[in-house]
């Protein structure tokens, strides 16, 4: 095969990779190098592989992913800023046989939607929350988010985040893992192949949990925002690995199959 011509390569019979049928042909508005595109692709692939296109309802956020409904071919609702978990709560309770997920950024989920996120998780809603954490507001032009790292420069902390002024990076997944209503909280990334494979497994597991009625699943994707960070995609990935992973270490924070908490009640 080493002497393949270009013609051979583009011959459909020789294709070894294709995009999911659930990804539409709409050109994505995401910046080149952004993590959103990869995460969209993985979600579309999992829905396709599980054969649940007719049973899946997505809730889009306000933020860069506001147009997520243009890219994955399923039914969608577009929420107000931060309210996606409230919409998802009702959608799932009123249609319990459906797979319902929210797709939210760090501004949406950790700032304006903190209450909706915590309470939906705490009620044990059988929904999936996909959380893109790139430590910045992308859509509005690179302002500070609750997850912005200490010292990190943004449009609203141009001298770098000062914890005395702005508090500390919010590790919301750690907080959500403490809630009895969540069954699975994991932190993933999609900057290299091995991580993409792991992230996809996490997405699938989260969907399976939701239909098994185990409670809320949260999949955080530690992500890049090369436009907001003002770095090349390559440098963004490097910066993420060196800085973001220290504050937001990858891995499972909770998996109820492994560490099922038992109530600490002893009858003497």
């Amino acid at each position, binding site marked *: 095969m080493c002497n393949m011509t270009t013609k051979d390569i583009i011959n459909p019979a020789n294709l070894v990779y294709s995009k999911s049928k659930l990804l539409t042909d709409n050109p994505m508005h995401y910046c080149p190098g952004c993590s959103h595109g990869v995460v969209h692709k993985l979600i579309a692939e999992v829905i396709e592989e599980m054969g649940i296109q007719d049973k899946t309802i997505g809730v889009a956020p306000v933020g860069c992913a506001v147009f997520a409904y243009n890219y994955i071919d399923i039914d969608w609702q577009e929420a107000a800023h931060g309210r996606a978990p409230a*919409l998802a709560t009702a959608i799932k309770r009123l249609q319990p046989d459906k797979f319902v997920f929210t797709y939210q950024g760090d501004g949406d989920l950790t700032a304006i939607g903190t209450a909706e996120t915590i309470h939906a998780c705490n009620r044990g809603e059988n929904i999936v929350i996909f959380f893109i954490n790139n430590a910045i507001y992308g859509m509005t032009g690179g302002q500070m988010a609750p997850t912005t790292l200490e010292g990190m420069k943004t449009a609203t902390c141009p001298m770098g985040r000062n914890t005395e002024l702005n508090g500390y990076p919010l590790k919301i997944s750690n907080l959500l893992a403490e809630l009895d209503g969540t069954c699975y909280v994991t932190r993933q990334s999609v900057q290299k192949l091995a991580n993409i494979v792991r992230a996809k497994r996490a997405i699938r597991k989260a969907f399976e949990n939701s239909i098994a009625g185990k409670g809320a699943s949260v999949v955080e994707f530690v992500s890049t925002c090369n436009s907001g960070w003002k770095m090349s995609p390559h440098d963004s990935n490097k910066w993420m690995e060196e800085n973001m992973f220290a504050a937001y270490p990858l891995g499972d924070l909770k998996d109820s199959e492994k560490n099922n908490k038992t109530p600490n009640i002893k009858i003497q």
Partner: protein
Amino acid sequence: MEDFKLMKGNEAIAHAAIRCGADGYFGYPITPQSEVMETLMELRPWETTGMVVLQAESEVAAINMVYGGAGCGKKVMTSSSSPGMSLKQEGISYIAGAELPCLIVNVMRGGPGLGTIQPSQSDYFQTVKGGGHGDYRLIVLAPSTVQEMVDFVDLGFNLAFKYKNPAIILADGIVGQMMEKVVLPPFKPRRTEEEVRKECPWATTGKLPNRERNIITSLELESEAMEKINLRLQAKYREIEKNEVRFEAHQCEDADYVLVAFGSIARICEKSMEMAREEGYKVGVLRPITLFPFPTNPIKELSQKVKSILTVEMNAGQMVEDVRLAVNGKIPVEFYGRMGGIVPSAEEILAALKEKLIK
């Protein structure tokens, strides 16, 4: 024989919701309407009709749950009182913008701010003129009896689905809290999934191979497309104005003076009218039942026949602006109102009528 029950207006809302086949209620406690959710929790409709009842973490969450449920084509509702309604305005604007049907109940208390838990009608502007951002309208029903609290649940849902627009029952704390005899409607089954898919082909019921994906959104960044959406909304509101005006006129045929009032105050005005007639004054009462669409034409027609109008409200004078617009300067339109949770007496209204109109 009809089956009369004695109950509070708030309780009546809960019974009516279950009986009309509602799919979901999402609420947050606030005085003076907490009995709506309390009654639902006692009646446990999830065990009988399958209706979902959920206490949300805030009014913001509750209205956004309504948004999510409405997007699924379900018959969903929420209820609250004035300060809670302020919080719901964001969601209401989105629901109106996304053109979804739902039912909202506001049992009004006095404001501004935390105000008072006593009854008021001071959310007329908020409810009828907007409240949230953007050019939208709600279908506003103003009950004056507990029976109307029952009847307007079904009516509100029907209008909401007919026009794909939120409908709201704008009740005052009196109607919410007072007990009266009511006749409850027979049970109507909840719609099946097939029926929802048929009636609401736009709903997020899961994308089947035979249709495009459904997207519930109020977002459109192209200015020309967004203006078109607004023009379509406005055309819908004009259609509602044409078809859905509801009002009640008492003894307006021979009247020299007319009292215009909505909700429970209209009933007190009827008493003032009787007292005035005993004294030989020809007084009538016009009660708008729909506040949007407002009975502009009936009031305009009345202004050709009567000498003057007194609008009576439990606020500083809100609906009176719409009455004046309808009358358009043809005859004097005066206002009498009480605030802070004070309910005017029939005698007080009669005295205001004599002072301001008859002189």
